[in-house]
């Protein structure tokens, strides 16, 4: 099976019934377009050749509030990219545009293009469910489904896609191993997901995202609710996962960005100020505003 094989999903055959109400600009009519994913055979092993994301002229609004102002930015596959910037700079909003979560908020809309391996995720023919399967997300607070067991949490996405029992068992286990959680929970897979510690719950959420084998994993301050040890485990995990999934992490913790990211992006007032290799951005930034921010002269 080719790595570019598409997800078979009935929902993906639907086209947007009314392009006028579509939240995105540039929508075009036509046949349904599939979102590329890895094959199960590619699994969570080995390097990938897909998963590049490119933002082109991305704008995001909350009503009249212009939160993201024309961002052009690429996220390379097999890399961790950190987004830093003061509160309200638009970093979370920008990331939520990548898997089209932003438009779920009342009055929110996005303009421009988000390309996943060249495919415009804001094309009207794209199925949003498939987008969110290809672009997983981990949030600030761990949010396991409270009524589900550890294992059911992990395979919940697979179950929705109609995976067989044996497939769920294999991929669920693989996802837990991938999230560095298997050894800690293998004897309590039937126990409640919310019974795990905060750090374990967050890794459970990462496993849940990994189980559907996304191309991209968005992490919105994934460690802000965790203690230092749990934080370090997540950071180590990020380093391991980047060979399997493109990672974009929003963080307020600049040291975390420095530790985990290959590339760091600095945003201010909805605009992209500077993008560069992390070591360069934290030692010799080009832009004076970046210098001022990373050295803590404003924040």
């Amino acid at each position, binding site marked *: 099976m080719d790595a570019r094989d598409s997800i078979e999903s009935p929902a993906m055959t639907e086209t947007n019934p009314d392009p006028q109400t579509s939240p995105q600009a540039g929508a075009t009519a036509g046949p349904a377009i599939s979102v590329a994913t890895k094959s199960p055979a590619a699994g969570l092993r080995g390097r990938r050749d897909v998963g590049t994301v490119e933002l082109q002229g991305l704008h995001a609004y909350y009503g009249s509030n212009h939160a993201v102002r024309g961002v052009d930015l690429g996220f390379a596959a097999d890399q961790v990219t950190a987004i830093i910037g003061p509160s309200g700079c638009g970093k979370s909003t920008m990331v939520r545009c990548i898997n089209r979560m932003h438009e779920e908020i009342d009055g929110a809309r996005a303009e421009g293009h988000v390309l996943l391996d060249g495919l415009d995720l804001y094309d009207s023919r794209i199925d949003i469910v498939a987008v969110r399967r290809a672009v997983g997300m981990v949030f600030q607070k761990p949010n396991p489904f409270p009524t589900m067991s550890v294992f059911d949490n992990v395979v919940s996405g697979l179950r929705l896609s109609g995976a067989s029992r044996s497939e769920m068992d294999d991929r669920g286990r693989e996802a837990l191993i991938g999230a560095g959680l298997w050894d800690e929970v293998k004897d309590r897979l039937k126990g409640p997901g919310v019974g795990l510690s905060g750090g374990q719950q967050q890794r459970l959420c990462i496993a849940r995202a990994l189980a559907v084998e996304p191309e991209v994993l968005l992490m919105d301050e994934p460690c802000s609710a965790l203690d230092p040890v749990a934080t370090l485990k997540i950071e180590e995990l990020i380093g391991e996962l980047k060979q399997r999934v493109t990672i974009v992490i929003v963080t307020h913790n600049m040291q975390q960005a420095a530790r985990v990211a290959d590339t760091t992006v600095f945003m201010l007032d909805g605009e992209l100020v500077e993008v560069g290799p992390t070591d360069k951005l934290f030692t010799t930034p080009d832009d004076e505003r970046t210098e001022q921010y*990373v*050295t803590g002269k404003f*924040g």
Partner: protein
Amino acid sequence: MATATRTQYQEELQRLEASALDGLNLVNSALERTLEAIQHQDVELAQIVVADDDRIDGRYLEVHQSLITLLATQSPVATDLRLISALLHVLKCVERMGDQCVNICKVIPLTGNEPPADERMVQLILGMGKQTRALIGQAKRAFCERDVELARDLVRQDDVVDDLNRDGFRLALEIGDDADKREWAMTMLLAARAIERIADNAVDIGEQVAFVVTGLFREFEDASHPSG
């Protein structure tokens, strides 16, 4: 833009920079007294220089520890990180410059109270010392003002010291067959070599100025691959 932050940290960093660079004043003072001890064969003054080196070492330890604390507690980055890295280097240079003065002052008594001094050699060493003191002052000014051109000019000034050092070798060879004179000349060559190293340390500090400003570390001159 949001409000200014970390003022205490910035003030502490400024204080430590001033304290580290003030170490160069201590060195300049030690070198001045070292030269005076050479000129007048003043063994007591030489002993004072040796004892006073504790002040330079103390400054090194105090500022070094405070910089390590800043690294541990404030996670400095960008210019701040480069500055702290450079200051650690400057401190090491300051400590070594002080040690070179001690090295000179320890050999001064070896030649006795009334050595068979050659006036040309004494004047040459005093000239080296004067030029080196100017280099130390220039290195400090270049650092304070983040003046890369002034820092680069230290190489040119250092060449004067190097030339004088070579002249010292020629003078020592010409000093004759008298055993006492030759022993004294050997001692003076050690002093000249120590002063020449102090000047090199001043150039090292200049290289740190360039690092703080540009983020790139390059030796101004590669001693192992001279350009000719």
